[in-house]
């Protein structure tokens, strides 16, 4: 998937996550900044999940700023997918 612009999805509400996406030039790789209220307990899990889903979406060069307020895995997945698709200019069908 080719990212075109900055985009975000999610909120700062508790049990949610705010994900901001910024395209990077090809070959720059993934730069992920994760902040989470449950960093100690689940930080690694969330990071792994983000990588897995970026793999699945075919996104290599991207800067991600994720601010997590204790979101569940499926919420994180939905917010990430939405942010990426918004960045790629894909509208909901």
């Amino acid at each position: 998937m080719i990212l075109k612009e900055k985009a975000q999805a999610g909120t700062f509400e508790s049990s949610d996550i705010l994900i901001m996406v910024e395209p990077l030039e090809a070959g720059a790789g993934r730069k992920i900044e994760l902040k989470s209220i449950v960093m100690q307990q689940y930080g690694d899990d969330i990071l792994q999940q983000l990588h897995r889903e970026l793999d699945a979406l075919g996104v290599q060069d991207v800067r991600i700023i994720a601010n997590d307020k204790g979101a569940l895995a499926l919420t994180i997945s939905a917010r990430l997918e939405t942010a990426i698709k918004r960045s790629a200019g894909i509208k909901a069908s």
Partner: protein
Amino acid sequence: MSIETDQITLAAIMAKSRERRWQQKLELAGQGNHVISVQLNVPGYPKVFGRLDEFFSLISQEIADFFRSYCIFLDLKEQVCESDDTGSMTLFGVPADIISARQLKVISEQFEESHPLGRFIDVDILDVTGEAISSGKLKPCFYCQAAPAFICRRENKHDINVLREFIESKVNRFLAKRATGQLAHTLSAFACRALLHEVSLTPKPGLVTRTDAGAHTDMDFTTFLDAIGSFAPYFQDIVRLTDQIEDKDNSAVLPAIRRIGLQMEGAMNGVTNRVNTHKGAIFLMALAVFCAAKVIRKKGIFKLGAFVCEVQRISIGLVQRELCLKTNGKSTHGQKCFEQYGLEGSGARGEVEQGFPSVVYYGLPVIKEGLEKLGVTPKDEDLRVVLVEALLNIMTVNNDTNVLFRHGWEVLEEIKRKSADALLAWRKGDNALYLQMVDECRKRRISPGGSADLLSVSMFVCYCDNQFR
């Protein structure tokens, strides 16, 4: 749609709704406000079910009042307010120049901690830049209290339906308790108001009024005010009794009311130096308050017929039990009267066992009609015209044991006859006969206290009828 896509659709609806609400918050913040957002902590879907909607509007008001107690005025009318299946939300904007967001957070935390259901309520503070102010505290799971909430949530520790039932039962209990508390305040105020109006009615034949003590030498207006002031908390206890007593447990009801009645007598004796200003009134009013509370809680409104039934139901056999049979204690005036005059002298007990006929047919109709004409804030003089008519109407039929016990049958009949004459004249606007009676009762020291008690009960019933219709 399969269950799975169903779930995904729901999740999408929720995710979208959250984003939209967050935008609303940012918009409010953008106008130079700190934002106070009120939401409920409800897992699963729909987010609003049972009585949660009612609970939520109540909470929004409580929060507005809570902040107001710290001199921060939140206008409930200018709030952003939303409620649908994806949850309820109330937003208040507080101009950023009057207080810091951190200070607002401290107050909101105090609210959450002091409220019995504070863990179901999320009061979030966003500062004027849209940044959420965090307390940095990890809240425990409201269900198990053992682990931090985020762990139970993330690890799916509790079944969602169990959690929802848990919330619903807590909320229902909270609402029921609150309703009882409010009813207790209202009915206690009505009872005291009725007693105050009764004693303030001036002039009255032989009774204590605001200007003189009538036939009495050991009590006056002040004594009455002192006594009535001491009753207020106990009337509330009587309303709460409706929560504690099982519906079928008829025989236990009267003793339970009586135990509170005895406390009231104790309070009265304490402030009046053991002068009995209200013994009969306590008995009648306590019973009326209990039965009114019972009816209002059961039906949601006050129904006179149901009220009478309730009075009769809990006092059935009272005359037989307490007047026909000997008791081990000292006889009260009522008991002595009954021994001497039989059923005609059954007094307050006879009155309640028949379901307050003097109130329902003689006192209440006059007061109801009169108050309807006078409106909510009647003038002293106008109210007097109505209340004197009601008192006289009661006195024409009531076998007042206060009169009977001290003066005998003939005097009682004479008073009833004179009341009827005075009533006819009073209705025509002629007060001469009434004033003559007032004078005579004072001189002969005749005090129709039982009729005065029934007048207060009539007023109380009228207040209930007007309020809970």
